[in-house]
């Protein structure tokens, strides 16, 4: 009997505490979630426009494998992308979100894709924690970013040493940031491979609309 009351004496305050803490977390989550979501969407939309300024009517589309639906936010376990029209009003411009492991941590990028020409035409690093002064150059080094103004994805994206780019499907890497440059190449290559059939299907479905 004594045992039970003494465990109650310890357990009850802890239970109350757990309830209070749960309540606090849920309330603050609900209170801040709309603001956070709205800000995230705004940043994403602005970045998407920045990646392909010439695209018209950019909108977010998600596919669950069978259907395409307009969405307001990225949905987990679905393939989401921004689709935009070119001057002939055909859905040819796409902005895709891709991520992968870099040198220090996850790298997240947005890139613009011209489906008809199978060419990457815009690029933006959304998030990276690469080494300051070396790897973080992938986000702002002008020579490196020039690679993505016109980057063919056929036959296959390749990263070469700085200054050794000879073909349109090659990325000129950054000296001192080899792993980060190669990681960007890997991220783009696997994302393009994954998304090309999905985008082709989407383009056919919306042909002439």
């Amino acid at each position, binding site marked *: 009997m004594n045992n039970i009351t003494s465990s109650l*004496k*310890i357990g009850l*305050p*802890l239970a*109350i*505490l*757990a309830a*209070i*803490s749960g309540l*606090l*977390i849920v309330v*603050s*989550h609900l*209170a*801040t*979630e709309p*603001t*956070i979501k709205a*800000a*995230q969407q705004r*940043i994403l939309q602005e970045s998407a426009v920045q990646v392909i300024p010439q695209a018209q009517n950019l909108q977010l589309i998600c596919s669950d494998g069978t259907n395409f639906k307009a969405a307001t936010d990225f949905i987990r376990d679905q393939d989401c992308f921004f689709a935009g029209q070119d001057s002939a009003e055909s859905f040819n411009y796409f902005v895709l979100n891709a991520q992968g492991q870099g040198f220090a*941590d996850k790298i997240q990028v947005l890139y613009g894709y011209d489906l008809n020409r199978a060419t990457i035409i815009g690029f933006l690093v959304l*998030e990276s*924690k690469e*080494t*300051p*002064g070396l790897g973080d150059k992938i986000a702002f080094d002008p020579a490196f970013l020039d690679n993505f103004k016109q980057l063919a994805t056929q036959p296959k994206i390749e990263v070469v040493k700085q200054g050794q780019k000879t073909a349109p499907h090659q990325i000129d890497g950054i000296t001192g940031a080899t792993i980060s440059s190669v990681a960007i190449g890997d991220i783009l290559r696997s994302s393009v491979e994954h998304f090309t059939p999905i985008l082709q299907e989407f383009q056919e479905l919306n042909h002439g609309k």
Partner: protein
Amino acid sequence: MENSADNFFRGLWKENPVFVQLLGMCPILAVSNTVINSLAMGLATTFVLICSGILISLMRNIIPKQVRIAAFIIIIATFVTVAEFILQAVSIEIHKSLGAFISLIVVNCIILGRAEAFASRNPVFPSILDAVGTGLGFTFALFCMGALREVLGSGTFAGIAVMPAAFEPWIVFILPGGGFFVLGFLLLVVNHINSSLKRRAA
């Protein structure tokens, strides 16, 4: 009244959590590569210190002795989660650049230390003063680190260029190694000031 002032000012210099007690070293080194990051981290930590100080002080007679550490950690983790939501709502960019270190405020020994040493033994008002003093002392230390590292390592202060154009930034200061050097140097300066103060008093 003198006592309240002491509760407040103690954390700022005499018992500065970083320079004197050598606590909370991880965030001090990890997020002090820019001034903005330092200030955001300092304020978030101060927020958690104050809130958890209040709650722990209120519950100090209910929490059983045997499980007090577990209870403190739950309370701290709760407020860190809340702080994370607020920071995210205020600025996603800052939240992103601080990354996991916002969550790691939970294991900042300063907070658990103040909870155990002060808030769990004192009424609410002194606990708040103590928390604010400690938090500002921590923020001050972070700010010194951030300012030195950003000015020398990137040539900017809070993102604004302050060094002449000919200045080539010493990248080493924003790299991990530079963090250790700057903190070691600051400790040296604080030691020097304190020992010369002592000499003058003697």
